[in-house]
C-alpha cells in the first residue's frame, strides 16, 4: 500500500493551517498512515474492497459553481456544501455551520483520514426544549471536472433535553472520479427527538463513505431513514448507542442500486441500558450489475434487560448479474430480552404479476406497482411530503392514489 499521494496532498494542505492545528492534524494523518484503508480481511469489510484506493490520487476539492436548484426542497432551511466548502449563496442559513471540527473518536483509518483533512461542516446545536421550526436540508454536493477530487467533512448534531429537529443529509454530485467521506456525530440528550434522513443519489464516479454515530440518552427518540439510489460506490455505517433507559431507535433504509453501483449498509444498535427499543428495517431492490451489502447488528450489553429489538431485511434481486450479501447479526449478553430478526431474498412475485396483467395492466406498469408495493414499507416512513416525492421520482415509481381523499369520497 503506498498512500504516497495522500501524503503529498496532506503536506500541501497542512501547510495552509495555523501551526497549533498542524500538530493535531499530523497525528491524525499518522494514524491514517498506520491503519491505511480497511482491507477485506477485516470481517466488517468482507464484501467491500477499498484496496485500490491506496494508489489513487485525489486533489482536495474546491468550491466549484454548482446548480442545485432542482434539489431544493421548498419548505426547508438549507445549508449547501460543494466539495466540502460552504456555499453561502445557495444556503439559506449559515447559522448551523462550524468552520473546523473533527470526529470525536478515530475509530479506524478512514475516520483518521477524514479527521486529517476535515474542513468543517454542519454544527447543529439545539438547547433544551428548543424545536427546529423548519426541516434542515443539508446538501452535500461533489463535483469533479478535469482531475479526481476528494472532500472530507465532519458534522455534528447535538440536541439538548427535549429538543426536536428534522434533518436531511442529501448527497448528490456529477462529473469525474471523486471521493467523499463524512463523519456525523450525533448526541441526543434525554427526551430529545431527531428525525434524520439521508438521501444518496450520486452518479457513477463517486465513492461516498458516510459514518453516523449516535449517542442516545434516557427517553430520546431517533428516527433514521436512509435511501440509496444512483450508481455510486457507497459505504454507510450507522451506529446508535441506546445508553439511557427508555431510548428508542427506528433505523430504516431502502437501497435501489443500478448500473455497477455498490451499496454497503452497516447498521449497529447497541443496547447499553435496560428498557430500550430498537427497530431496524431495510429493503433492497438490486438491478442490472449492482451489488448490495447489508450487515445489521444488534448488540445487547449484560445489563440491558427488557431489551426489545427487531431487525428485518428483505431483498429483491432483479437481474442475473446483480448480487446481494446480507448478514443480520445478534450478539446478546442479557437474558430477559426479546430479539428477533428475519431476512429474505427473492424476486418479484410472478403470480401477482400475472394477476395484474390479467386485469389489463401492462407488464412494465405491473412491475412498477409491485416494486412500489415492496418499497412502500420504507417509503411510508418518510413523513416529509416534499422529500417523499423526491425519492419516488428518483426511483421512477408510480404514485399511489392519496387514500385520504378516497375515504372522503367513499364515505
Amino acid at each position, binding site marked *: 500500500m503506498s498512500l504516497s499521494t495522500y501524503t503529498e496532498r496532506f503536506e500541501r494542505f497542512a501547510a495552509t493551517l495555523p501551526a497549533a492545528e498542524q500538530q493535531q492534524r499530523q497525528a491524525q494523518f499518522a494514524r491514517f498512515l498506520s491503519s491505511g484503508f480497511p482491507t477485506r480481511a477485516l470481517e466488517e469489510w468482507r464484501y467491500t474492497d477499498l484496496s485500490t484506493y491506496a494508489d489513487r490520487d485525489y486533489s482536495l476539492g474546491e468550491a466549484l459553481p454548482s446548480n442545485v436548484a432542482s434539489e431544493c426542497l421548498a419548505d426547508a432551511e438549507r445549508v449547501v456544501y460543494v466539495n466540502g466548502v460552504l456555499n453561502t449563496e445557495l444556503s439559506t442559513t449559515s447559522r448551523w455551520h462550524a468552520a473546523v471540527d473533527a470526529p470525536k473518536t478515530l475509530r479506524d483509518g478512514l475516520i483518521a483520514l477524514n479527521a486529517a483533512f476535515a474542513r468543517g461542516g454542519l454544527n447543529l446545536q439545539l438547547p433544551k426544549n428548543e424545536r427546529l421550526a423548519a426541516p434542515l436540508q443539508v446538501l452535500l454536493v461533489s463535483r469533479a471536472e478535469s482531475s479526481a477530487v476528494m472532500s472530507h467533512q465532519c458534522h455534528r448534531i447535538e440536541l439538548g433535553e427535549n429538543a426536536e429537529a428534522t434533518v436531511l443529509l442529501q448527497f448528490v454530485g456529477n462529473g469525474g472520479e471523486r471521493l467523499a467521506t463524512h463523519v456525523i456525530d450525533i448526541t441526543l440528550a434525554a427526551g430529545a427527538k431527531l428525525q434524520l434522513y439521508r438521501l444518496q443519489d450520486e452518479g457513477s464516479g463517486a465513492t461516498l463513505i458516510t459514518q453516523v454515530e449516535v449517542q442516545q440518552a434516557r427517553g430520546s427518540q431517533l428516527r433514521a431513514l436512509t435511501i440509496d439510489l444512483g450508481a455510486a460506490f457507497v459505504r454507510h455505517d450507522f451506529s446508535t448507542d441506546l445508553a439511557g433507559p427508555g431510548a428508542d431507535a427506528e433505523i430504516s433504509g431502502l437501497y435501489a442500486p443500478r448500473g455497477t453501483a455498490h451499496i454497503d449498509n452497516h447498521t449497529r444498535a447497541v443496547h447499553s441500558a435496560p428498557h430500550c427499543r430498537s427497530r431496524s428495517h431495510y429493503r433492497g431492490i438490486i438491478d442490472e450489475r449492482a451489488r448490495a451489502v447489508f450487515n445489521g447488528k444488534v448488540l445487547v450489553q449484560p445489563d440491558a434487560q427488557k431489551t426489545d429489538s427487531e431487525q428485518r431485511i428483505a431483498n429483491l434481486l432483479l437481474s442475473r448479474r446483480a448480487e446481494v450479501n446480507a448478514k443480520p447479526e445478534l450478539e446478546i449478553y442479557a437474558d430477559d430480552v426479546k430479539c428477533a430478526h428475519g431476512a429474505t431474498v427473492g424476486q418479484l*412475485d*410472478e*403470480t*401477482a404479476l*400475472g*394477476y*395484474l*396483467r*390479467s*386485469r*389489463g*395492466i*401492462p*407488464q412494465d*406498469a*405491473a412491475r412498477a*406497482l*409491485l416494486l*412500489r*408495493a*415492496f418499497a*412502500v*414499507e420504507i417509503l411510508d416512513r418518510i413523513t416529509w411530503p416534499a422529500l417523499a416525492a423526491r425519492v419516488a421520482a428518483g426511483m421512477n415509481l*408510480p404514485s*399511489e*392514489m392519496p*387514500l385520504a*381523499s*378516497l*375515504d372522503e*369520497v*367513499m*364515505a
Partner: protein
Amino acid sequence: MLLEIKNLHARVETKEILKGLDLTVKAGEVHAIMGPNGAGKSTLSHVIAGREGYAVTDGEVLFNGKNLLELEPEARACEGIFLGFQYPVEIPGVSNITLLKAALNARRKYRGEKEIEPGDFLAWVRDRAKLVKIDPKMLSRGVNEGFSGGEKKRNEILQMLILQPTLMILDETDSGLDIDALRIVADGINTMRAPERATILVTHYQRLLDYVQPDFVHVLAGGRIVKSGGPELAKELEDKGYGWLEAA
C-alpha cells in the same frame, strides 16, 4: 361470434391437459362448463386469459375474430376478457383502488380514450362496491390482503363490474361461498348479462346455476368437451355425477 375455440391442445410442463377442445360462444350467451376434478377446466380458463406456463401445442382461439393466442395477457384483458380467479392473488402493498384505477385506465388507453376523471372513477367504484357489499374501506387495503375466502370472490366480481368486460370467465367463483355470498356473486353476474356480452361459468356444482341460468351446459372431461346440452344437463349431472359419462 365472440369466442371460437378450435381443436385446442395445451400442456402444463410436460403434461397434456387439453386434448382437442372445441367451443363456440356467441354474444348474449351464458355457458356453463362442468366436469370432474382434473378435467382441464382451470387450464381452459388460464389458456384463454394467457397465463404463463401454459403451452398451446395445437388449435386456435379467436376472440371477435382476432387470434387471442398471440396477445399478451394484458392485451387480452384490454380486448374485453375477464377471468375471475379460482384463487385470487394477494398483493400486499398494492391497494385495491390502485389496481382498479390502473386497470381501468390501461383499458381506456388501449382503446385510445383519455384517463378517467378521479371524481368519476371514485363514484363509479363506490356504486359498484355497494352492489357486492364491499366496505369501501377495504379498497384502500392491499389487493385481497387479509380478505376472507368470500370477500376475495366478491372482490373478483367487483373488479368485473368496474372493468365491464365483454367475455367473463368465472373459474369456480362459487366454491367455498355461503348462501348469502353466493347470491351476491350471482347478482353481480346477472347485472352484467347483456346482448353484447357473454359469460362462461366454470363450475363443479349445479348450485350457482340455480341463480345464474345458463343457455348451454358443457361437460369437460379428459381435456375435451364430451357432451353439450341445455340447462337440463346440469340437473342430470347433479343427479348422476360424472361417472355415467365416462362409462358411456
